[in-house]
């Protein structure tokens, strides 16, 4: 049952994700393990999810669900990723005053944060292997775009959608227009 599998995968992703992009390593490993997507497609959904409104986790769930099993797949994946909100968070809402003072989550985060950082570093390496390579070897234009993006993000403080937009335009020029001109 692909719907159950999607639900279960995104349930795991939901319960082990603590904010934003630290979700990507989890999504990447689940997608690759089930063969629902290849590494290129994982990069694509991250880009699309970051360009559109809505939280990354939900957007990835919808996109991955749609890609692998259509609309019902998207619903199943969304339900999975929302389960922490519907269970843990609802409990926290009911016992709000008691929960607010509990330090357990803060203590857990002391170890979870460096772990998330490690996974983020790791996924950068694995994604680099596909995103900066072609069949022929290393793709120099891709590396140039990547370096430029990093500078824009870190030094010039560009927003993520702006950087993605620029990279799409540069991609069109270098991979679309340039080969046509040289041919």
């Amino acid at each position, binding site marked *: 049952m692909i719907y159950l599998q999607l639900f279960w995968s995104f349930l795991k992703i*939901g319960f*082990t994700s*603590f904010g*934003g*992009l*630290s979700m*990507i*390593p989890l999504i990447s*490993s689940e997608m690759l393990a089930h063969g629902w997507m290849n590494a*290129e497609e994982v990069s694509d959904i991250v*880009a*699309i999810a*970051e360009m559109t*409104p*809505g939280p990354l986790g*939900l957007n990835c769930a*919808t*996109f991955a669900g*749609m890609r692998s099993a259509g609309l019902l797949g998207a619903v199943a994946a969304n339900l999975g*990723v*929302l*389960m922490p*909100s519907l269970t843990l*968070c*609802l409990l*926290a*809402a009911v016992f709000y005053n008691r929960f607010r003072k509990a330090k357990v989550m*803060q*203590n*857990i*985060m*002391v170890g979870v*944060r*460096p*772990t*998330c950082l*490690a*996974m*983020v*570093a*790791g996924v*950068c390496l*694995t994604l680099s292997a596909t995103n*900066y390579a072609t069949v022929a070897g290393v793709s120099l234009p*891709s590396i140039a*775009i*990547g370096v430029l*993006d990093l500078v824009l*993000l*870190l030094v010039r403080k560009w*927003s993520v959608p702006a*950087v993605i937009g620029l*990279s799409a*335009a*540069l*991609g*069109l020029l*270098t*991979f*679309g227009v340039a080969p046509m001109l040289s041919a």
Partner: protein
Amino acid sequence: MGRFKTLGNLFGTFLKLGCFTFGGGWSIVAQMQRIYVERKRVLSEEELVDMTGVARSLPGTMIGNVAVLFGYRMAGVAGSVVCLLGIILPPMALLCALAFFYTAFRENEWVSAAMNGVRASIVPIVLSAGIGMLKSSFPFPPCVAVFAVTLALYLVFDLNCVYLILIGAVCGLLLSEYYERRQKGRGAKK
């Protein structure tokens, strides 16, 4: 009748909020602040900050958690469900459409040229997010060891991320306990 109206209002507002969640949940919190703290005055500034803090400390998408906490506060479990639905439906509809177009057009050479460029931007984006996490990741020296060990487990042994997070959680509990006790011990000596 009043109850249905409340639920309807909540749904409507969160549906609107759901349309404008660019770049994480903070823009939504900012809009909630404007609507519910400043205009409708049903929530105090501190309560919202508090709610956001709780939402962030729990696993899952932060904005889903905020919607559940706020909805429960306004109208119980039904309020939670209504707010959550409102906030997820717009992005979900949009992403469904995009997934459809992606499937249809990804083979197109112009689209694939643009996507080639876009793919080059993903590692810098993730990397810069990682750099942003650096500050809060190492409150105690042993956290560096947690980072190193989990990175090795991830890259070399390809360990499932779920186990990695569990290992991190256990380390966090142990480390916090240790440093708390040490601090208490020091306090006692003084």
